């Protein structure tokens, strides 16, 4: 039997119907049309579905849609200001840190979660913070450099580029 859920997604009041075993990722992608969060594994291993649930970094594939009742979800679609890029996105571009791009939404959300909490992480901290985000293409190094560079830019107050 479908469950009626009222929640907030990227700051907007949202409601939807879902089955008891539908994941938040299923709801985002298939019901709400927010396909930025990717499904790489559906088992918590790859991080491509990373989102912030009430400010906490989680895998959307391991959250039930029904659990979102009364919660606040931030997805990759809500990370950048309208028409702009988040510094992590900007630096990933500048460092050519993307190839196929499947992992990138999750990396951006996970890196944002890290930098919101720790504006000046060292390389080891960044590597541990992104250990739950698998990338089959880049070899990670450029991603790590880009995140460190984004941290530096954010500390200098570059903030978000419109």
């Amino acid at each position, binding site marked *: *039997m479908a*469950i009626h859920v009222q929640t907030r997604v990227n700051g907007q009041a949202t409601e939807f119907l879902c*089955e*008891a*075993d539908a*994941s938040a990722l299923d709801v985002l992608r298939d019901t709400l049309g927010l396909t930025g969060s990717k499904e790489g594994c*559906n*088992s*918590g*291993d790859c*991080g491509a579905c*990373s989102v912030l*649930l009430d400010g*906490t*970094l*989680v*895998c959307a*594939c*391991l*959250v*039930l849609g*029904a*659990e979102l*009742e009364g919660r606040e979800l931030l997805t990759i679609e809500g990370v950048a200001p309208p028409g702009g890029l988040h510094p992590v996105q900007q630096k990933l571009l500048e460092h050519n840190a993307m190839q196929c791009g499947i992992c990138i939404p999750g990396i951006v959300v*996970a890196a944002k*979660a*890290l930098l919101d909490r720790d504006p000046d992480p060292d390389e080891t901290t960044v590597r*541990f*913070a992104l*250990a*739950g*985000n698998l990338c089959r293409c880049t070899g990670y190094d450029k991603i790590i450099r880009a995140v460190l560079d984004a941290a530096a830019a954010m500390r200098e107050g570059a903030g978000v580029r419109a």
Partner: protein
Amino acid sequence: MGVQAYRAPRSIPEAVSLLSSEAGAFALGGGTDLLVQQRSGARQPGSFIDLKRIPGMLGIEQLPSLWRIGAATACGEVASHPGLRSELPGLVEAAGLIGSKQVQGRASLGGNLCNASPAADSVPALVANRAVLVVAGPEGERRIAAECLTLGPGRTVLGRGEFVCAIEIPRPAARQSDAYLRFIPRTEMDIAVVGAAASLRVDEGGRCIAARIALGAVAPTVLTSPEADAALTGSMLEPEAIAACVAIAQAACSPISDRRGTAEFRRHVAGVLLRRVILAASQRLAKEG
């Protein structure tokens, strides 16, 4: 069939009644084991009873003689709690090793315990620290020692309608500390080949007056050994005493061979890690002075 319902009870009695009455009801903590198992077909829940909206299931409380951790509290919260970091650094180490940051945002200690994997990282640290589980059920509340929860891989002593509400851990005495280490083939995101925890207490002269060790992934359930503990108690934690403790614990292991390691390798690594956690805990004591 499939999952027919999702329920989010707001009270313990409501949860007990749903867990007792719904067909195939499974308690849901962070879902990091249960949802994966449901999708692979390893478990076939008829309904999810989400415990996270029950007051007291989330959060960490410091009481005069113990820490009370809501059973659904995420490991990430445990791992970053300043009070726990200073009093139970070994438990914090174990909680901080579970999965990725994403998994830590959800994975709970209650789920780590009740999933009953022999390799669960928090369990040796909880057992070494004499954690007690507060269990709610149709007959009311009961308390069980953490090491008495599991019967074997995937099996616990919990009856129908029962669930773990909270984990109570005695606050360490003066000159008491703990440590946890695990071996995995890489640095993150893998299941322990062996996990080892130790909690030690010494007197003013540095003599060990209480010790408790616990090993994960070397037996069907977490391994404790009063004989190994006794080899440390009364000693100055000198190399000979540690070696005796390690030899007894290694002899008590009954590991399996799998693709992560042979039984022989596990037994060897158990010895290495156990020695290291004893040293790590005693170094923490030395720092305390």
